[in-house]
């Protein structure tokens, strides 16, 4: 894997994790509203 490929991959990975964090945040808000 070249450096550029690794950077591209890591960026997409970071983007996916940010998406997961947003989903967690949304779910936590849902749960807090339900309480």
């Amino acid at each position, binding site marked *: *894997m070249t*450096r550029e*490929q*690794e*950077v*591209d*991959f*890591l*960026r*997409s*990975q*970071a983007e*996916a*994790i*940010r998406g*997961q*964090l947003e*989903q*967690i*945040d949304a*779910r*936590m808000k849902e*749960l*807090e509203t*339900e*309480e």
Partner: protein
Amino acid sequence: MRIAISATAPSMDAEVDPRFGRCQYFVIVDPQTMEFEALENSNVGAAAGAGISTGQMIANKGVGVVLTGNCGPNAYQTLSAAGLQVITGVAGRIRDAVEAYKAGRLQPDTQPSVAAHFGMGATPGMGTGMGGGMGRGMGMGRGMGRGMGMGRGVMPQAAPQATSPEQEIELLKSEAQMLGQQLSEIQRRIEELGKGK
């Protein structure tokens, strides 16, 4: 084209380690000659980022195929991005797994077999529950139970589910914290690469 197999010991007669990122060893085999080399996995005790680091290590070894028990989304993406085929659900002796591959009995996967952080327990087989949630199982059997499960395999332990909203919130906080650490690790690596390390 050489094959990398996650292994419990540095031998052709070792068992396939069910974990990829945190397996103990890799045995890299030339299926034509059955010559092999064994690598110790330095990420076996990694707190975070083991799938990516191990995936990069294997991608840099010039192998074309990975045989393992389970492979999470981080490792799967790393290996796929490097053009490697990933075959999960493999068990038994390394030698037999290679023979099965040569005989065409093993087929490449098109998706990860388990959620992230699978296999974070100290020993193989510990903490392998994955829950059903979005590929964000926490390891140690704490799946979130929110549908869209990632895996196809049957896990040896059932994943405990959050039984109350409070419990789910606690699990989500832990998960968010772990993902945050993973994100920091990725950003640190991107910066390193940007500086030419």
